Protein backbone atom coordinates (compact mmCIF):
# COMPACT_ATOMS: atom_id res chain seq x y z
CA UNK A 1 0.00 0.00 0.00
CA UNK A 2 1.41 3.41 -0.88
CA UNK A 3 1.76 5.98 1.87
CA UNK A 4 -1.09 8.00 0.34
CA UNK A 5 -3.37 4.98 0.43
CA UNK A 6 -2.36 4.22 4.00
CA UNK A 7 -3.14 7.77 4.95
CA UNK A 8 -6.59 7.65 3.34
CA UNK A 9 -7.35 4.48 5.28
CA UNK A 10 -6.20 6.14 8.46
CA UNK A 11 -8.31 9.19 7.78
CA UNK A 12 -11.43 7.11 7.28
CA UNK A 13 -11.25 6.12 10.92
CA UNK A 14 -9.43 9.14 12.34
CA UNK A 15 -10.77 12.13 10.37
CA UNK A 16 -8.84 14.71 12.35
CA UNK A 17 -5.37 13.49 11.54
CA UNK A 18 -3.66 15.52 8.84
CA UNK A 19 -0.69 14.52 6.78
CA UNK A 20 1.93 17.20 6.15
CA UNK A 21 3.88 15.59 3.39
CA UNK A 22 6.50 18.27 3.21
CA UNK A 23 7.51 17.44 6.77
CA UNK A 24 6.67 13.75 6.88
CA UNK A 25 4.49 14.24 9.88
CA UNK A 26 0.88 13.48 10.71
CA UNK A 27 -0.75 15.81 13.20
CA UNK A 28 -4.16 16.07 14.68
CA UNK A 29 -6.66 14.95 17.25
CA UNK A 30 -7.52 11.42 18.28
CA UNK A 31 -10.80 10.91 20.09
CA UNK A 32 -11.12 7.83 22.20
CA UNK A 33 -13.99 6.39 24.07
CA UNK A 34 -13.66 4.00 26.98
CA UNK A 35 -16.42 2.33 28.94
CA UNK A 36 -17.06 5.34 31.12
CA UNK A 37 -15.23 8.24 29.51
CA UNK A 38 -14.46 10.15 26.36
CA UNK A 39 -11.09 11.71 25.86
CA UNK A 40 -9.08 13.42 23.18
CA UNK A 41 -5.39 13.80 22.51
CA UNK A 42 -3.41 16.08 20.27
CA UNK A 43 -0.78 13.94 18.64
CA UNK A 44 2.01 14.07 16.14
CA UNK A 45 3.23 10.98 14.33
CA UNK A 46 6.67 11.39 12.89
CA UNK A 47 7.61 9.32 9.86
CA UNK A 48 11.21 8.74 9.04
CA UNK A 49 12.30 8.99 5.40
CA UNK A 50 13.01 5.26 5.78
CA UNK A 51 9.43 4.44 6.80
CA UNK A 52 8.26 1.65 7.01
CA UNK A 53 11.69 0.03 7.56
CA UNK A 54 12.06 2.50 10.39
CA UNK A 55 9.04 2.73 12.65
CA UNK A 56 6.93 5.84 13.18
CA UNK A 57 7.36 7.71 16.45
CA UNK A 58 4.58 9.48 18.28
CA UNK A 59 4.42 12.60 20.39
CA UNK A 60 1.61 14.07 22.42
CA UNK A 61 1.69 17.80 21.79
CA UNK A 62 -0.75 19.19 24.33
CA UNK A 63 1.52 17.89 27.09
CA UNK A 64 -1.44 16.37 28.83
CA UNK A 65 0.62 13.28 29.59
CA UNK A 66 3.36 14.16 32.09
CA UNK A 67 7.00 13.47 31.27
CA UNK A 68 7.25 10.77 33.88
CA UNK A 69 4.55 8.66 32.24
CA UNK A 70 6.43 6.54 29.72
CA UNK A 71 8.30 8.95 27.56
CA UNK A 72 11.50 8.38 25.67
CA UNK A 73 13.93 10.88 27.02
CA UNK A 74 15.32 13.23 25.95
CA UNK A 75 13.29 13.59 22.73
CA UNK A 76 9.96 13.13 24.49
CA UNK A 77 8.28 10.63 22.17
CA UNK A 78 5.87 8.18 23.73
CA UNK A 79 6.97 4.72 24.82
CA UNK A 80 4.01 2.81 23.50
CA UNK A 81 5.36 -0.60 24.41
CA UNK A 82 8.70 -2.36 24.67
CA UNK A 83 10.70 -1.98 21.45
CA UNK A 84 10.35 -5.62 20.47
CA UNK A 85 6.58 -5.62 20.99
CA UNK A 86 6.24 -2.46 18.92
CA UNK A 87 8.17 -4.10 16.11
CA UNK A 88 6.20 -7.31 16.39
CA UNK A 89 2.86 -5.56 16.12
CA UNK A 90 3.91 -3.15 13.39
CA UNK A 91 5.57 -5.84 11.25
CA UNK A 92 2.36 -7.85 11.18
CA UNK A 93 0.87 -5.10 9.04
CA UNK A 94 3.07 -2.19 8.11
CA UNK A 95 0.42 0.50 7.86
CA UNK A 96 -0.33 3.75 9.62
CA UNK A 97 -3.74 2.47 10.60
CA UNK A 98 -2.25 -0.56 12.34
CA UNK A 99 0.24 1.65 14.16
CA UNK A 100 -2.47 3.97 15.44
CA UNK A 101 -5.10 1.29 16.11
CA UNK A 102 -2.93 -1.24 17.85
CA UNK A 103 -0.17 0.81 19.43
CA UNK A 104 -0.95 4.49 19.81
CA UNK A 105 -4.64 4.28 20.74
CA UNK A 106 -4.15 1.52 23.36
CA UNK A 107 -1.40 3.66 24.89
CA UNK A 108 -3.63 6.75 25.01
CA UNK A 109 -6.50 4.67 26.35
CA UNK A 110 -4.14 3.38 29.02
CA UNK A 111 -3.24 6.89 30.07
CA UNK A 112 -6.88 7.97 30.15
CA UNK A 113 -7.57 5.11 32.57
CA UNK A 114 -4.40 5.83 34.53
CA UNK A 115 -5.29 9.49 34.99
CA UNK A 116 -8.79 8.59 36.16
CA UNK A 117 -8.38 5.39 38.13
CA UNK A 118 -4.68 5.46 38.95
CA UNK A 119 -3.82 2.47 36.83
CA UNK A 120 -3.55 1.45 33.19
CA UNK A 121 -5.88 -1.45 32.29
CA UNK A 122 -3.12 -3.86 31.36
CA UNK A 123 -0.60 -2.47 33.82
CA UNK A 124 2.71 -0.92 32.94
CA UNK A 125 6.13 -2.25 32.18
CA UNK A 126 8.98 -1.31 34.47
CA UNK A 127 11.21 1.27 32.83
CA UNK A 128 14.41 0.44 31.05
CA UNK A 129 16.05 -2.98 30.88
CA UNK A 130 13.98 -4.34 33.72
CA UNK A 131 10.77 -3.85 31.72
CA UNK A 132 12.35 -5.34 28.63
CA UNK A 133 13.49 -8.40 30.55
CA UNK A 134 10.05 -8.84 32.09
CA UNK A 135 8.55 -8.73 28.64
CA UNK A 136 10.83 -11.49 27.38
CA UNK A 137 9.99 -13.60 30.42
CA UNK A 138 6.36 -13.30 29.38
CA UNK A 139 7.11 -14.17 25.75
CA UNK A 140 9.22 -17.18 26.77
CA UNK A 141 6.90 -18.11 29.62
CA UNK A 142 9.84 -18.56 32.02
CA UNK A 143 10.01 -16.99 35.51
CA UNK A 144 13.80 -16.92 35.76
CA UNK A 145 15.99 -14.00 34.59
CA UNK A 146 18.92 -16.10 33.42
CA UNK A 147 16.78 -18.66 31.60
CA UNK A 148 15.09 -15.84 29.70
CA UNK A 149 18.48 -14.34 28.94
CA UNK A 150 19.79 -17.66 27.62
CA UNK A 151 16.78 -17.98 25.32
CA UNK A 152 17.25 -14.38 24.18
CA UNK A 153 20.90 -15.05 23.47
CA UNK A 154 19.83 -17.51 20.75
CA UNK A 155 18.01 -14.65 19.00
CA UNK A 156 20.65 -12.02 19.69
CA UNK A 157 23.55 -14.20 18.61
CA UNK A 158 21.46 -15.67 15.82
CA UNK A 159 22.56 -19.24 16.57
CA UNK A 160 19.36 -21.26 16.65
CA UNK A 161 20.07 -25.01 16.62
CA UNK A 162 16.93 -27.07 16.89
CA UNK A 163 18.66 -30.20 18.16
CA UNK A 164 20.44 -28.51 21.08
CA UNK A 165 19.09 -28.78 24.56
CA UNK A 166 16.62 -26.03 25.38
CA UNK A 167 18.20 -23.48 27.77
CA UNK A 168 14.97 -23.27 29.75
CA UNK A 169 16.01 -26.41 31.61
CA UNK A 170 13.20 -28.68 30.42
CA UNK A 171 15.64 -31.37 29.20
CA UNK A 172 13.92 -31.30 25.80
CA UNK A 173 15.62 -30.30 22.61
CA UNK A 174 14.84 -26.75 21.48
CA UNK A 175 12.77 -27.88 18.51
CA UNK A 176 10.37 -29.67 20.83
CA UNK A 177 10.39 -26.94 23.47
CA UNK A 178 10.88 -23.20 22.88
CA UNK A 179 11.61 -23.70 19.17
CA UNK A 180 8.34 -22.44 17.78
CA UNK A 181 8.30 -19.37 20.02
CA UNK A 182 11.89 -18.51 19.09
CA UNK A 183 11.35 -18.99 15.37
CA UNK A 184 8.22 -16.88 15.43
CA UNK A 185 10.05 -14.09 17.23
CA UNK A 186 12.89 -14.35 14.76
CA UNK A 187 10.59 -13.69 11.81
CA UNK A 188 9.86 -10.21 13.16
CA UNK A 189 13.32 -9.24 11.92
CA UNK A 190 14.11 -7.37 15.09
CA UNK A 191 17.62 -6.43 16.19
CA UNK A 192 17.60 -8.39 19.48
CA UNK A 193 21.22 -7.59 20.27
CA UNK A 194 20.35 -4.16 21.62
CA UNK A 195 17.95 -5.55 24.23
CA UNK A 196 20.37 -8.33 25.04
CA UNK A 197 23.21 -5.88 25.74
CA UNK A 198 20.96 -3.76 27.90
CA UNK A 199 19.72 -6.67 29.96
CA UNK A 200 23.23 -8.02 30.51
CA UNK A 201 24.38 -4.59 31.60
CA UNK A 202 21.43 -4.33 33.96
CA UNK A 203 21.98 -7.77 35.54
CA UNK A 204 25.69 -7.09 35.90
CA UNK A 205 24.93 -3.93 37.84
CA UNK A 206 22.62 -5.97 40.03
CA UNK A 207 25.62 -8.23 40.84
CA UNK A 208 24.65 -11.22 38.70
CA UNK A 209 27.54 -13.09 37.10
CA UNK A 210 27.00 -12.72 33.35
CA UNK A 211 30.53 -13.53 32.14
CA UNK A 212 29.32 -16.64 30.28
CA UNK A 213 27.23 -14.42 27.98
CA UNK A 214 30.12 -12.30 26.77
CA UNK A 215 30.95 -13.62 23.29
CA UNK A 216 32.99 -12.05 20.50
CA UNK A 217 29.81 -11.07 18.68
CA UNK A 218 28.55 -9.45 21.84
CA UNK A 219 31.76 -7.47 22.29
CA UNK A 220 31.78 -6.10 18.76
CA UNK A 221 28.12 -5.18 19.04
CA UNK A 222 28.82 -3.26 22.25
CA UNK A 223 31.64 -1.42 20.52
CA UNK A 224 29.46 -0.55 17.58
CA UNK A 225 26.72 0.68 19.85
CA UNK A 226 29.09 2.88 21.81
CA UNK A 227 30.44 4.52 18.66
CA UNK A 228 27.01 5.33 17.24
CA UNK A 229 24.48 4.97 20.02
CA UNK A 230 21.53 6.23 18.00
CA UNK A 231 21.91 3.99 15.00
CA UNK A 232 20.47 0.72 16.05
CA UNK A 233 19.39 1.52 19.54
CA UNK A 234 16.62 3.66 18.13
CA UNK A 235 14.09 3.32 20.93
Amino acid at each position, binding site marked *: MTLDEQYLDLRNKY*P*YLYFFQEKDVIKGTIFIEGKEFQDSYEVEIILSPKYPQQLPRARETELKIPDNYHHNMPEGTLCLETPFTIHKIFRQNETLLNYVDNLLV*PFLHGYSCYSRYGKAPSGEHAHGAEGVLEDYKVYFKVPDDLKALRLLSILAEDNYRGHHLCPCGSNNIIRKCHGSILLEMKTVGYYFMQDYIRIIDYLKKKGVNVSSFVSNKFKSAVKELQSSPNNKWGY
Partner: protein
Amino acid sequence: MEMFERTMMMANSFDQYAEELDIPESRYLEAIKRYESIGSWLSKNDSAIAKYAPKIYPQGSFCLGTVVKPINNDEYDIDLVCCFENLQKEETTQGKLKKMVGDRLLENDVYKRILDKEGNRCWTLNYANEFHLDILPAIADNELRARLGLYADAILITDKEKIVAQDQEWPKSNPKGYAKWFSSRQERIFIVMKNALAETTKVKVDEVPDYKIKTPLQRVVQILKRHRDYYYSKKNNDYKPISIIITTIAAMLYNGQNNTYNAIHDILLGINDNLLKKTGVGYYIPNPTNPEENFADKWNDDPKLSQAFYEWVNEARNAFCSESILEKADSKEFGKALEVSLGMKIPENSLGREKVSVTMPPYVRSNPSSERRPWGNG
Protein backbone atom coordinates in the same frame (compact mmCIF):
# COMPACT_ATOMS: atom_id res chain seq x y z
CA MET B 1 -7.48 25.73 20.03
CA GLU B 2 -7.72 21.97 19.62
CA MET B 3 -7.29 20.47 16.20
CA PHE B 4 -10.91 19.40 16.10
CA GLU B 5 -12.23 22.88 16.84
CA ARG B 6 -9.75 24.30 14.39
CA THR B 7 -11.01 21.93 11.69
CA MET B 8 -14.59 22.97 12.34
CA MET B 9 -13.61 26.62 12.23
CA MET B 10 -11.80 26.19 8.93
CA ALA B 11 -14.54 24.04 7.41
CA ASN B 12 -17.02 26.70 8.39
CA SER B 13 -14.95 29.47 6.80
CA PHE B 14 -14.63 27.47 3.58
CA ASP B 15 -18.38 26.99 3.55
CA GLN B 16 -18.95 30.70 4.00
CA TYR B 17 -16.75 31.52 1.05
CA ALA B 18 -18.36 28.85 -1.09
CA GLU B 19 -21.76 30.20 -0.12
CA GLU B 20 -20.67 33.61 -1.35
CA LEU B 21 -19.55 32.09 -4.68
CA ASP B 22 -22.80 30.25 -5.15
CA ILE B 23 -25.68 31.53 -7.20
CA PRO B 24 -28.11 33.26 -4.80
CA GLU B 25 -31.27 31.31 -4.16
CA SER B 26 -33.53 33.93 -5.77
CA ARG B 27 -31.38 33.96 -8.90
CA TYR B 28 -31.36 30.17 -8.95
CA LEU B 29 -35.15 29.99 -8.80
CA GLU B 30 -35.38 32.76 -11.40
CA ALA B 31 -33.18 30.76 -13.78
CA ILE B 32 -35.40 27.72 -13.40
CA LYS B 33 -38.44 29.79 -14.20
CA ARG B 34 -36.68 31.21 -17.27
CA TYR B 35 -35.69 27.89 -18.74
CA GLU B 36 -39.04 26.35 -17.98
CA SER B 37 -40.72 29.06 -20.03
CA ILE B 38 -38.25 28.47 -22.84
CA GLY B 39 -39.28 24.83 -22.65
CA SER B 40 -42.95 25.63 -22.99
CA TRP B 41 -42.24 28.03 -25.84
CA LEU B 42 -40.42 25.29 -27.74
CA SER B 43 -43.10 22.69 -27.19
CA LYS B 44 -46.13 24.94 -27.60
CA ASN B 45 -48.83 23.58 -29.97
CA ASP B 46 -48.18 26.08 -32.73
CA SER B 47 -44.49 25.30 -32.72
CA ALA B 48 -43.13 23.44 -35.75
CA ILE B 49 -40.90 21.37 -33.47
CA ALA B 50 -43.50 20.43 -30.83
CA LYS B 51 -43.97 17.02 -32.47
CA TYR B 52 -40.38 16.10 -31.58
CA ALA B 53 -41.17 16.52 -27.86
CA PRO B 54 -38.33 18.90 -26.96
CA LYS B 55 -37.31 18.62 -23.30
CA ILE B 56 -35.20 21.23 -21.61
CA TYR B 57 -33.05 20.46 -18.57
CA PRO B 58 -29.98 21.89 -16.87
CA GLN B 59 -26.51 20.39 -17.15
CA GLY B 60 -23.06 21.23 -15.82
CA SER B 61 -22.41 23.19 -12.66
CA PHE B 62 -25.99 24.46 -12.37
CA CYS B 63 -27.20 20.89 -12.27
CA LEU B 64 -24.36 19.65 -10.03
CA GLY B 65 -24.77 22.48 -7.54
CA THR B 66 -21.22 23.71 -8.10
CA VAL B 67 -21.89 27.11 -9.66
CA VAL B 68 -19.20 29.72 -9.13
CA LYS B 69 -19.71 33.43 -9.55
CA PRO B 70 -17.48 34.63 -12.42
CA ILE B 71 -14.62 36.95 -11.49
CA ASN B 72 -15.45 40.68 -11.92
CA ASN B 73 -18.83 39.85 -13.31
CA ASP B 74 -22.27 39.18 -11.96
CA GLU B 75 -23.60 37.11 -14.82
CA TYR B 76 -23.71 33.39 -14.19
CA ASP B 77 -23.36 30.85 -16.98
CA ILE B 78 -26.15 28.33 -16.99
CA ASP B 79 -25.96 25.37 -19.33
CA LEU B 80 -29.11 23.73 -20.64
CA VAL B 81 -29.81 20.77 -22.88
CA CYS B 82 -32.70 20.88 -25.30
CA CYS B 83 -33.26 17.27 -26.33
CA PHE B 84 -35.69 16.26 -29.06
CA GLU B 85 -36.83 12.94 -27.66
CA ASN B 86 -38.91 12.00 -30.71
CA LEU B 87 -36.39 12.73 -33.43
CA GLN B 88 -34.05 10.05 -34.75
CA LYS B 89 -30.56 10.62 -36.03
CA GLU B 90 -31.59 9.17 -39.43
CA GLU B 91 -34.37 11.74 -39.87
CA THR B 92 -32.21 14.83 -39.54
CA THR B 93 -28.74 16.33 -39.67
CA GLN B 94 -26.75 18.33 -37.15
CA GLY B 95 -27.27 21.49 -39.17
CA LYS B 96 -31.04 21.00 -39.37
CA LEU B 97 -31.39 20.32 -35.68
CA LYS B 98 -29.39 23.35 -34.67
CA LYS B 99 -31.38 25.58 -37.04
CA MET B 100 -34.76 24.31 -35.85
CA VAL B 101 -33.98 25.39 -32.29
CA GLY B 102 -32.60 28.75 -33.38
CA ASP B 103 -35.56 29.46 -35.68
CA ARG B 104 -38.08 28.71 -32.97
CA LEU B 105 -36.29 31.03 -30.53
CA LEU B 106 -36.34 33.81 -33.14
CA GLU B 107 -40.11 33.51 -33.42
CA ASN B 108 -40.35 34.95 -29.91
CA ASP B 109 -39.87 38.71 -29.65
CA VAL B 110 -38.14 38.58 -26.28
CA TYR B 111 -35.75 35.77 -27.19
CA LYS B 112 -35.05 37.40 -30.54
CA ARG B 113 -33.80 40.48 -28.72
CA ILE B 114 -31.48 38.66 -26.37
CA LEU B 115 -30.26 35.87 -28.64
CA ASP B 116 -26.49 35.95 -29.10
CA LYS B 117 -24.79 35.03 -32.37
CA GLU B 118 -24.64 31.31 -33.00
CA GLY B 119 -22.14 29.43 -30.87
CA ASN B 120 -20.19 26.35 -31.78
CA ARG B 121 -22.58 23.97 -30.11
CA CYS B 122 -25.13 26.22 -28.37
CA TRP B 123 -27.59 29.02 -28.69
CA THR B 124 -27.07 31.65 -26.00
CA LEU B 125 -29.71 33.90 -24.48
CA ASN B 126 -28.28 36.90 -22.61
CA TYR B 127 -30.32 38.06 -19.67
CA ALA B 128 -28.45 41.26 -18.85
CA ASN B 129 -27.11 41.45 -15.30
CA GLU B 130 -28.55 38.04 -14.48
CA PHE B 131 -27.16 35.16 -16.49
CA HIS B 132 -26.44 33.62 -19.88
CA LEU B 133 -28.46 30.58 -20.77
CA ASP B 134 -26.60 28.27 -23.12
CA ILE B 135 -28.98 25.96 -24.92
CA LEU B 136 -27.47 22.80 -26.37
CA PRO B 137 -29.63 21.17 -29.10
CA ALA B 138 -29.56 17.39 -28.84
CA ILE B 139 -31.26 14.11 -29.76
CA ALA B 140 -31.29 10.74 -28.01
CA ASP B 141 -28.30 8.45 -28.47
CA ASN B 142 -30.30 5.25 -28.76
CA GLU B 143 -27.27 3.01 -29.16
CA LEU B 144 -25.79 4.06 -25.83
CA ARG B 145 -29.16 4.27 -24.10
CA ALA B 146 -29.64 0.57 -24.72
CA ARG B 147 -26.91 -0.01 -22.13
CA LEU B 148 -29.17 1.57 -19.48
CA GLY B 149 -27.80 2.64 -16.09
CA LEU B 150 -25.70 5.76 -16.36
CA TYR B 151 -26.27 5.67 -20.13
CA ALA B 152 -30.07 5.87 -19.99
CA ASP B 153 -30.03 9.55 -20.98
CA ALA B 154 -27.08 9.68 -23.38
CA ILE B 155 -27.45 12.26 -26.14
CA LEU B 156 -26.02 13.24 -29.51
CA ILE B 157 -25.21 16.90 -30.01
CA THR B 158 -24.27 19.19 -32.87
CA ASP B 159 -21.01 20.88 -33.68
CA LYS B 160 -20.64 23.78 -36.10
CA GLU B 161 -17.39 22.40 -37.50
CA LYS B 162 -18.93 18.98 -38.06
CA ILE B 163 -21.89 20.48 -39.92
CA VAL B 164 -19.68 21.51 -42.83
CA ALA B 165 -17.16 18.71 -42.51
CA GLN B 166 -17.10 15.55 -44.61
CA ASP B 167 -17.25 13.38 -41.54
CA GLN B 168 -20.67 14.00 -40.07
CA GLU B 169 -20.40 11.85 -37.01
CA TRP B 170 -22.47 13.27 -34.15
CA PRO B 171 -20.55 14.28 -31.03
CA LYS B 172 -21.69 12.36 -27.97
CA SER B 173 -22.57 13.69 -24.56
CA ASN B 174 -24.22 12.44 -21.40
CA PRO B 175 -24.79 15.24 -18.89
CA LYS B 176 -27.57 13.47 -16.97
CA GLY B 177 -25.39 10.39 -16.60
CA TYR B 178 -22.53 12.50 -15.33
CA ALA B 179 -24.81 14.17 -12.80
CA LYS B 180 -25.98 10.75 -11.59
CA TRP B 181 -22.38 9.64 -11.16
CA PHE B 182 -21.49 12.82 -9.31
CA SER B 183 -24.38 12.48 -6.90
CA SER B 184 -23.52 8.83 -6.31
CA ARG B 185 -20.15 10.00 -4.99
CA GLN B 186 -21.83 12.03 -2.25
CA GLU B 187 -25.00 10.05 -1.70
CA ARG B 188 -24.45 9.11 1.92
CA ILE B 189 -23.50 12.50 3.25
CA PHE B 190 -26.24 14.05 1.16
CA ILE B 191 -28.90 11.96 2.91
CA VAL B 192 -27.40 12.66 6.33
CA MET B 193 -27.35 16.41 5.67
CA LYS B 194 -30.83 16.43 4.23
CA ASN B 195 -32.20 14.74 7.33
CA ALA B 196 -30.25 17.09 9.57
CA LEU B 197 -31.63 20.12 7.73
CA ALA B 198 -35.17 18.75 7.93
CA GLU B 199 -34.72 18.32 11.65
CA THR B 200 -33.32 21.79 12.32
CA THR B 201 -35.95 23.51 10.16
CA LYS B 202 -38.69 21.22 11.49
CA VAL B 203 -40.07 20.08 8.14
CA LYS B 204 -40.46 16.65 6.54
CA VAL B 205 -37.42 15.34 4.71
CA ASP B 206 -39.34 15.14 1.40
CA GLU B 207 -40.13 18.81 1.73
CA VAL B 208 -36.48 19.84 1.75
CA PRO B 209 -35.51 20.77 -1.83
CA ASP B 210 -32.28 19.11 -2.93
CA TYR B 211 -30.66 22.37 -3.93
CA LYS B 212 -30.64 23.50 -0.30
CA ILE B 213 -28.08 20.86 0.55
CA LYS B 214 -24.46 21.60 -0.19
CA THR B 215 -22.18 18.69 0.54
CA PRO B 216 -18.48 19.08 1.33
CA LEU B 217 -17.75 17.75 -2.17
CA GLN B 218 -19.81 20.48 -3.83
CA ARG B 219 -18.13 23.08 -1.64
CA VAL B 220 -14.68 21.81 -2.54
CA VAL B 221 -15.43 22.00 -6.26
CA GLN B 222 -16.64 25.59 -5.85
CA ILE B 223 -13.59 26.62 -3.84
CA LEU B 224 -11.16 24.96 -6.24
CA LYS B 225 -12.80 26.47 -9.32
CA ARG B 226 -12.71 29.91 -7.74
CA HIS B 227 -9.10 29.47 -6.73
CA ARG B 228 -8.28 28.48 -10.31
CA ASP B 229 -10.18 31.45 -11.75
CA TYR B 230 -8.41 33.86 -9.45
CA TYR B 231 -4.99 32.31 -9.97
CA TYR B 232 -5.42 32.53 -13.74
CA SER B 233 -6.86 36.02 -13.67
CA LYS B 234 -3.30 37.16 -13.03
CA LYS B 235 -1.68 35.18 -15.82
CA ASN B 236 -1.99 33.64 -19.27
CA ASN B 237 -5.26 31.77 -19.56
CA ASP B 238 -4.29 29.34 -22.30
CA TYR B 239 -3.45 26.47 -19.97
CA LYS B 240 -6.15 27.00 -17.38
CA PRO B 241 -7.41 23.58 -16.14
CA ILE B 242 -10.96 22.98 -17.31
CA SER B 243 -13.85 22.67 -14.86
CA ILE B 244 -14.84 19.15 -15.87
CA ILE B 245 -11.35 17.90 -14.97
CA ILE B 246 -11.39 19.60 -11.59
CA THR B 247 -14.91 18.35 -10.86
CA THR B 248 -14.16 14.79 -11.94
CA ILE B 249 -10.93 14.51 -9.95
CA ALA B 250 -12.55 15.97 -6.84
CA ALA B 251 -15.46 13.54 -7.08
CA MET B 252 -13.10 10.62 -7.70
CA LEU B 253 -11.07 11.43 -4.60
CA TYR B 254 -13.93 12.42 -2.34
CA ASN B 255 -14.33 9.79 0.30
CA GLY B 256 -17.35 10.83 2.34
CA GLN B 257 -15.50 13.39 4.49
CA ASN B 258 -18.00 15.16 6.67
CA ASN B 259 -16.55 18.65 6.45
CA THR B 260 -15.16 20.85 3.71
CA TYR B 261 -11.73 21.27 5.22
CA ASN B 262 -11.01 17.55 5.48
CA ALA B 263 -12.39 17.02 2.00
CA ILE B 264 -10.28 19.72 0.31
CA HIS B 265 -7.19 18.59 2.18
CA ASP B 266 -7.55 14.94 1.18
CA ILE B 267 -8.51 15.72 -2.39
CA LEU B 268 -5.60 18.07 -3.01
CA LEU B 269 -3.08 15.72 -1.43
CA GLY B 270 -4.54 12.74 -3.26
CA ILE B 271 -3.73 14.13 -6.70
CA ASN B 272 -0.70 12.52 -8.28
CA ASP B 273 0.46 10.82 -11.44
CA ASN B 274 -0.49 7.36 -10.20
CA LEU B 275 -4.06 8.54 -10.23
CA LEU B 276 -3.98 10.51 -13.45
CA LYS B 277 -1.85 8.32 -15.68
CA LYS B 278 -2.43 5.01 -17.37
CA THR B 279 0.29 2.94 -18.96
CA GLY B 280 0.17 3.09 -22.72
CA VAL B 281 -2.12 6.12 -22.72
CA GLY B 282 -0.39 8.82 -20.71
CA TYR B 283 -2.69 11.16 -18.86
CA TYR B 284 -6.07 9.54 -18.52
CA ILE B 285 -9.06 11.11 -16.80
CA PRO B 286 -11.94 9.11 -18.19
CA ASN B 287 -15.43 10.47 -18.45
CA PRO B 288 -17.18 8.23 -15.90
CA THR B 289 -20.16 7.96 -18.22
CA ASN B 290 -18.14 7.32 -21.35
CA PRO B 291 -14.77 5.64 -20.83
CA GLU B 292 -13.85 6.26 -24.46
CA GLU B 293 -13.73 9.94 -23.68
CA ASN B 294 -10.53 11.07 -21.97
CA PHE B 295 -10.90 14.53 -20.46
CA ALA B 296 -7.12 14.82 -20.41
CA ASP B 297 -6.70 13.97 -24.10
CA LYS B 298 -5.09 17.30 -24.88
CA TRP B 299 -2.58 16.91 -22.04
CA ASN B 300 -0.91 14.16 -24.00
CA ASP B 301 -0.36 16.48 -26.99
CA ASP B 302 0.88 19.45 -25.02
CA PRO B 303 2.88 18.83 -21.82
CA LYS B 304 2.32 22.45 -20.81
CA LEU B 305 -1.25 21.55 -19.91
CA SER B 306 -0.31 18.96 -17.30
CA GLN B 307 2.49 21.18 -16.02
CA ALA B 308 0.06 24.05 -15.61
CA PHE B 309 -2.38 21.74 -13.83
CA TYR B 310 0.23 20.65 -11.30
CA GLU B 311 1.42 24.22 -10.85
CA TRP B 312 -2.09 25.20 -9.96
CA VAL B 313 -2.54 22.17 -7.66
CA ASN B 314 0.63 23.13 -5.81
CA GLU B 315 -0.59 26.67 -5.47
CA ALA B 316 -3.86 25.39 -4.03
CA ARG B 317 -2.01 23.05 -1.67
CA ASN B 318 0.01 25.96 -0.36
CA ALA B 319 -3.13 28.00 0.02
CA PHE B 320 -5.29 25.37 1.73
CA CYS B 321 -3.22 22.51 3.13
CA SER B 322 0.05 23.94 4.37
CA GLU B 323 0.96 23.90 8.00
CA SER B 324 0.96 27.68 8.17
CA ILE B 325 -2.74 27.62 7.25
CA LEU B 326 -3.54 25.07 9.90
CA GLU B 327 -1.86 27.19 12.50
CA LYS B 328 -3.87 30.36 11.95
CA ALA B 329 -5.00 31.55 15.34
CA ASP B 330 -8.70 32.12 14.73
CA SER B 331 -11.42 32.39 12.12
CA LYS B 332 -10.56 36.01 11.43
CA GLU B 333 -6.96 35.23 10.52
CA PHE B 334 -8.00 32.18 8.58
CA GLY B 335 -10.63 34.19 6.71
CA LYS B 336 -7.96 36.70 5.78
CA ALA B 337 -5.78 33.96 4.34
CA LEU B 338 -8.71 32.72 2.24
CA GLU B 339 -9.44 36.27 1.17
CA VAL B 340 -5.95 36.49 -0.28
CA SER B 341 -5.94 33.15 -2.08
CA LEU B 342 -9.48 33.46 -3.45
CA GLY B 343 -9.36 37.15 -4.24
CA MET B 344 -12.66 37.95 -2.56
CA LYS B 345 -14.08 39.35 0.63
CA ILE B 346 -17.14 38.13 2.39
CA PRO B 347 -19.40 40.66 4.05
CA GLU B 348 -18.98 40.46 7.81
CA ASN B 349 -22.68 40.10 8.42
CA SER B 350 -23.30 37.50 5.74
CA LEU B 351 -25.85 35.15 7.17
CA GLY B 352 -25.93 32.46 4.54
CA ARG B 353 -28.33 29.61 4.28
CA GLU B 354 -29.41 27.39 7.15
CA LYS B 355 -26.30 25.77 8.56
CA VAL B 356 -26.29 22.02 8.63
CA SER B 357 -23.82 20.43 10.94
CA VAL B 358 -22.89 16.78 10.69
CA THR B 359 -19.56 17.08 12.37
CA MET B 360 -19.55 15.18 15.64
CA PRO B 361 -16.06 14.17 16.68
CA PRO B 362 -15.72 10.48 15.92
CA TYR B 363 -14.72 8.66 19.05
CA VAL B 364 -12.81 5.52 18.44
CA ARG B 365 -13.76 2.80 20.84
CA SER B 366 -10.54 1.46 22.27
CA ASN B 367 -10.34 -2.25 21.91
CA PRO B 368 -10.03 -3.88 25.33
CA SER B 369 -8.54 -7.03 23.81
CA SER B 370 -5.48 -5.14 22.61
CA GLU B 371 -3.50 -5.42 25.80
CA ARG B 372 -0.61 -3.04 25.71
CA ARG B 373 1.64 -2.01 28.50
CA PRO B 374 3.58 1.22 28.26
CA TRP B 375 7.28 1.11 28.80
CA GLY B 376 10.04 3.69 29.21
CA ASN B 377 13.71 3.62 28.34
CA GLY B 378 14.76 5.80 31.25
